[in-house]
Structure formats: structure tokens, C-alpha cells
């Protein structure tokens, strides 16, 4: 997920390591909309990932608030939306709510990747539960961001170490019995995978560490995301507001 991984990426099995590992292969193309209320940040991201020939990312639209975002997304139908958590007009959650029909589209679903500076767990968990496919911090490097965009486009989930930490934290507080046994518990394997993500491991490294394939790692991560989004633990929300000592 950070520089050395990328350097090693060419040596590893390119297929399993993800499409963008080698900087977006030929034929790879993804249409992206940037939603962020800071113009400077949009410009920066645009400059970093917007060279379509090199990265395979084409920025087809930008928006600075919720209304604009909904309009632009509906009009351009991108494959991936980079969504800021804090936005004038209701925040990223509001955009997700109003774009819900687009996300469910089977033909060409619009997928959201939350991109935020926020450290507040309830913000982050909020957008994930709203339907975002992942969350990365704004300190992420350009190459990593491109990787994440492609991963989201493929329908995979993107967990930054910090998000993995939040999720582990949320699912760890089990003083109330889970409402839905299947959803409200992470399997041992899922916890292990999350822990390794939180420790800064890339998918490929996790696969090596646990002697499983990268595909399996991906499916674990997607399962966690699904649980997070579908879980009816009201506790999750409560946890976010009142974090207490163990």
C-alpha cells in the first residue's frame, strides 16, 4: 500500500496483486468524479491522478457541495466518486443517501471511495455505513490513491489502517449481545486480516503472512465491509459517540 509494495509489485504475480499495481496497465480506464469543497485539494488530486495516459484515471467532473455533487454524478455517471466526508449541505453521507439508486444500479454502478482528513470515527464509520466502498486519508500518495480507485472500481473494498482500527474497535465492544449473529460478529480470520491491515500490511503481504491468496484476503475484506454496512448493531453508532475505557 505504500512505496515499497509498489516497487515490488512488478515482481509479484500481477494478476493477483491488483490491476493498478504497475501504474494502470494498458486498456485500464476509470472515470472519476471528485467531490471536495476545497478547490486547492481538488486541484492537487487532479494533478496527481488526472494524467489519464499514465494512470488510467480520467476525472470527468468536480463538485464542491452536496447539490452540485448529486447533479454532477447523475449527469456524468462515473464509475468511482472520490467523496469528502465534510461537505457543505449535509456532508458526504447526504450525497450517498441521494445517490443510493445509482449505487444499486446493476448495469453500471457508481461506487464511492471516502477521502477525508477527518479523524473522528463517527464521520468515517458514517460514510462507510452510508454505502462508501472504502476510506482513505488525504495523506495517501498518488499511486496508492490510483490503486485504491481501481480496487473500488472492481467492486473491492479499500480499508486504510486507520479505518481497520476503527472497525476493530467498533466490533470489539461486545457488552451487548449481537442482534444478528451472522452479521454482528467478525470471524477469527476477518479479525486477523483487519489487524494486519491496521498494522500497515498490504494485501499481498497479508496473503503471505496468513498463507492464503490475495483473492481470499479481498473476499475477507469485502465481507467485513458488508457486515459494517448491513450490521444492525445500533451499538455501532452508540460506540462512535461515546468511547469509553475498557
Amino acid at each position, binding site marked *: 500500500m505504500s512505496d515499497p509494495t509498489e516497487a515490488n509489485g512488478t515482481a509479484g504475480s500481477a494478476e493477483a496483486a491488483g490491476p493498478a499495481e504497475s501504474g494502470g496497465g494498458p486498456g485500464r480506464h476509470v472515470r472519476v468524479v471528485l467531490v471536495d469543497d476545497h478547490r486547492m485539494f481538488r486541484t492537487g488530486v487532479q494533478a496527481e491522478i488526472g494524467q489519464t495516459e499514465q494512470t488510467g484515471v480520467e476525472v470527468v467532473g468536480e463538485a464542491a457541495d452536496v447539490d452540485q455533487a448529486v447533479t454532477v454524478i447523475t449527469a456524468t455517471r462515473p464509475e468511482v466518486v472520490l467523496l469528502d466526508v465534510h461537505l457543505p449541505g449535509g456532508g458526504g453521507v447526504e450525497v450517498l443517501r441521494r445517490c443510493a439508486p445509482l449505487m444499486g444500479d446493476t448495469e453500471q454502478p457508481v461506487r464511492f471511495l471516502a477521502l477525508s482528513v477527518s479523524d473522528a470515527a463517527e464521520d468515517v464509520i458514517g460514510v462507510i455505513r452510508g454505502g462508501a466502498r472504502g476510506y482513505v486519508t488525504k495523506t495517501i500518495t498518488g499511486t496508492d490513491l490510483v490503486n485504491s480507485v481501481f480496487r473500488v472500481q472492481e467492486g473491492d473494498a479499500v480499508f486504510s489502517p486507520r479505518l481497520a*482500527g476503527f472497525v476493530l*474497535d467498533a466490533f470489539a465492544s461486545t457488552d451487548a449481545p449481537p442482534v444478528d449473529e451472522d452479521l454482528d460478529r467478525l470471524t477469527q480470520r476477518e479479525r486477523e486480516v483487519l489487524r494486519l491491515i491496521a498494522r500497515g500490511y498490504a494485501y499481498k*503481504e497479508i496473503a503471505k503472512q496468513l498463507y492464503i491468496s490475495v483473492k481470499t484476503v479481498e473476499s475477507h475484506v469485502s465481507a467485513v465491509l458488508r457486515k459494517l454496512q448491513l450490521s444492525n448493531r445500533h451499538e455501532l453508532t452508540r460506540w462512535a459517540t461515546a468511547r469509553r475505557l475498557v
Partner: protein
Amino acid sequence: MSEAAAAPLAEPRPPRKLYRSSDGRWLGGVARGLAGHLGLPVIWVRLVFVGLFMADGLGALLYAAFWFFVPLGVGGVEAQKPPSPLTETSSDGRRRLVARRPDKGQIVALLLMVVVAMVFVGNVNLSGGARAYLWPTVFVGAGVALVWRQADNARRARWAEVGRRRRTVTLLRSVGGVLLVTAGVSGIFVLQGSAAHLGSVLQAALAVLVGITLLAGPYLVRMTQDLSEERLMRIRAQERAEVAAHVHDSVLHTLTLIQRNAENANEVRRLARAQERDLRTWLYKPEGTGKDEADEPTTLADAVRRNAAEVEDKHGVPIEVVVVGDCPLDERISAQMQAAREAMVNAAKYGGEGGAVQVFAEVEGKTVFVSVRDRGPGFDLGSIPADRMGVRESIIGRMERNGGTARLRAVPDGGTEVELEMERAEKTS
């Protein structure tokens, strides 16, 4: 004599304003406030008031006037010298005692007033007609005093922010005051011989009151709502200003430093990271954990973050921290924290070129797990000379002495990871 009492008002000293004292007062805090203002013992002022009271009730009038016009404040005798209680005179000592037990003082004051009033009434030779008005007047006076002191209390409560729980008492006092005043005024009416018309007078008064309430009610309600809203806004604005003041200063500082060190990429990065951390602490730290720098961290999460921040500042390598769960620090965990810090220093020193150092801490049940990983060239513990004690002693040795375990291992794709595991001390939550 009245001139003597009024003198301090006539020649106001610019820097000092006259306030009624909010603590240690017996009635309205007038005497205490005056004493503080004049630099006299309270007892003298009180005696003067009592004496003036004898002069046809002048003292009472004067007192009431002061009460009415002088705002309640934190002035008063003690406010003159709060930092040095040692310099207090003996009379001051007694005053402190009174201040601690205001209720006793108030009872004494009340008794004193009654006695003085008796004497006064006895002295003044009132004609039969006038004498009859005495009790209604006393009622009115008592009622007014009751409600007025109430208003003062409310104001004081706002300073101390303890007002809520005494709602009912407040209400009772207000009602009591109103009843007293009503009784007094009615008494006067009755005495004036209009007792026959009392019923119709009361009815008319009631009608007028209802009318006024209907007319002014909505307006009054809206006014109070506006007022409380405005107060809320003010509090918010204040909070924002506080954050802004803090952020403003430190951000400008950092930006200046960054401009000056523009060629030195490492220094710029270090400054920016430090500033970011500072800002995050301010913005996202949960309420009640104290946004100010505490002296010593008391919980695991705190300790990990603090250590990481210090190492980051010192070595200029970004350290990313993820903490899951939290627990209070005990002796073993503190040892683990020291080992973790050592590991962070090593990672920053020898593995910092590969990117950020990643620190992960998790509390699961009684086990506390910390991992520190870098993406540097990696190293082999076996190849390090036996006399180099850094890792062996300060990480592995320290953990084992305290009953924990430490593992160093090479990460498959380069870099080193230090894993520290420790059981928490017996008492669990």
C-alpha cells in the same frame, strides 16, 4: 451622617468600581461590598447602617437604594486580597467563617433586623392610624427583599453554574414574595377603608393583570427565547474564538518556520506533521480528556500517541498510529510503553527511509499487543554484536523482566516488525 455614607459614591476612584459582594453577605451584600470598596471592616459598615436605621429608617432606605442601584459583583472584602489569605486580619478570619456558612449569618441578620425594627417601632411615636400601617409595610418590605435576593442568587448561580437543581426552591421563594407583597398591599387598602370595595378592587386588578399577560405574554416569551438563543450563540462564538486563537497562532508560527526552512524538506515535513498532530488533538480529541497538555499520560492510547509524537519530532520520520481499545496504564503496561518507544526510535533511525513507521496497539481482554513496523532494509538480531545491548536489553529484556514477550521479525517484503505482548495487571474492569 448620610453624607459620610454617600461620599464614596460622590468621589469615585476610576479603577475601582463599587459592587455588592456576592459571597459572605447577610442580606444584599451591600455592607460587604461597601466595606471592600472603602477598605473598612464590614462590621463597621453594618453598624453604621443599623445606626442610620434608627434615624427614622434612613439606613433601610439607603440600604435599599444601594441594593437597587449597585450591581452584584465579585467585589467585596476578600476580593481585595484573594491570593494572600495569610495577611488577613482577625476580623477577616471571622468574615471567612461567615462566608462559609451563609445560612447562619442570614438567620442572625434576620433576628437582628427584627430586634432593631422592634426598637425602632418602640422609639418612633406613631399615631394610632399610622401604627396600623406598620404590619402591611413590613409585609411588603419582606416580600420585596425575598424576591430581590432571589434575583441576586439567580445571577450568582449563573456564574457558578449550579442553578438547575434549585428550581422549585426558586419558584417557592418567588411565590412567597409575591404573596407577602400582595398581603401587604391589600392590608393597606383595607386600612384605608376601602375594605368594602376589596372584592371589586381585586377583581379589577385581576382583570388588568390577565389583560396585560395576554397582551405582553407572547412578546415576553419571545424575548426570553431570543435572549437565551443569543446567549447560546455567544457561548459558541466564544468557543470558536478560543479554538481560532489557538490555531491561528500556532499555524502562523509553523507557516513562518516552513517558509524559512523551505529548502530543508525534512524540517518542513517535521513541522507540518507536528502542526497537523496539534490541530487534530484540538479538533478531534473527545471532550473531557482535556485538550490541554496533561502532564503524564494515564491511558494506553494516550501513552502510545505521546511516544509516537515525540519520536516523530525527534527523528523526523512520520509515525502512523492506530489504537484499538484503551486501558489505564499500570506498571507492566508502562514498561511495555517504554519498550515500544525504544522500538519506534529504532524503526525511525534505521528503517525510516522506506516510508512511515506504523504503530498498532490493541487491547483485547487482558492482553495488550503493540506492533511497531518499518519498511527499511530490515535486520537480523543474530548478526548484531553481543555487546550492542539496545534491542536485547531495552526491548526484549525489559519485556521479559515484566512478564511479557517481545518478538522481532523480518516482514516478508522488507522491513522489520517488533511485536510486544503483555498481560495487564490483575485488577480488570
